[in-house]
């Protein structure tokens, strides 16, 4: 399990609890190891609980949990290692996911629902149906993807929280 080791950068912290004030940003980094299926879901579960603790609405926490779960699984399934950085500020939740891995040759194709290069092992676990990237995009307000073959992939996605103060 991940313990909360976030960094609060802002004017002031109201209490010992994780609280974000106006103009402040909560930031936390999660390392993810490629190939480690036994820990799949830990990062996204921690993020979901963290966002709820920060006072975000259940739908935002749910969308963020689903998108980060897909991203976490992609690193586990396809990359050697990676990291996910969560930043929460008033009005937005931003996630940056970077991995060292084979990269994606044809991003448009990889974004197509149903297209997958998953192995049999991944499919036997119930994953690798080719929904991951498309599902991340579906659950987020802003989605950016860049990739370099032989080096890795970078995702950046944002949830707008409609001015709601986290």
């Amino acid at each position, binding site marked *: 399990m991940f313990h909360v080791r976030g960094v609060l950068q802002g004017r002031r912290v109201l209490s010992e609890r994780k609280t974000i004030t106006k103009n402040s940003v909560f930031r936390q980094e999660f390392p993810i190891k490629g190939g480690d299926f036994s820990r799949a*879901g830990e990062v996204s579960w921690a993020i979901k609980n963290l966002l709820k603790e920060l006072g975000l609405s259940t739908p935002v926490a749910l969308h963020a949990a689903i998108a980060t779960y897909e991203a976490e699984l992609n690193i586990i399934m396809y990359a050697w290692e990676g990291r996910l950085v969560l930043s929460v500020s008033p009005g937005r939740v931003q996630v940056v996911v970077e991995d060292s891995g084979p990269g994606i040759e044809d991003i448009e194709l990889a974004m197509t629902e149903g297209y997958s290069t998953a192995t049999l092992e991944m499919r036997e676990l*119930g*994953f690798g149906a080719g929904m991951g990237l498309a599902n991340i995009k579906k659950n987020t307000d802003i989605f950016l993807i860049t990739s370099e073959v032989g080096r890795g992939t970078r995702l950046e996605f944002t949830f707008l929280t409609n001015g709601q103060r986290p």
Partner: protein
Amino acid sequence: MLTLKGMITELDGELLTPGMNLEAECAKFFASDLMSDVLAFIKPGSILLTGLVNSHVVRTARLVEVTAIVIVQGKRPDRKVIDEARENRVPIITTGCSMFEACSRVAGSSPKGKR
């Protein structure tokens, strides 16, 4: 209204995670062995019917706020998976029904249930 308790009866099922709230309402259902599809299409509060028994089913279910997992074909997850479900308050029910039979019985007892 179909409750978890009623659904267990309908499916001749067995609750593998004691101590759960069996009065929870079962109004939405999703049947799949693909956790990718569960992540993409399920609605929170659904009953998940599946033939998969690994720990990823529980982790996916808790993430998308599934009300209960129904495992078909009489399969039983191992103790570790059941313990993980208990810790996360996700009820697991096993039934000897096939996926088709389980869906058919549930649909019959909850005609207005959303799929």
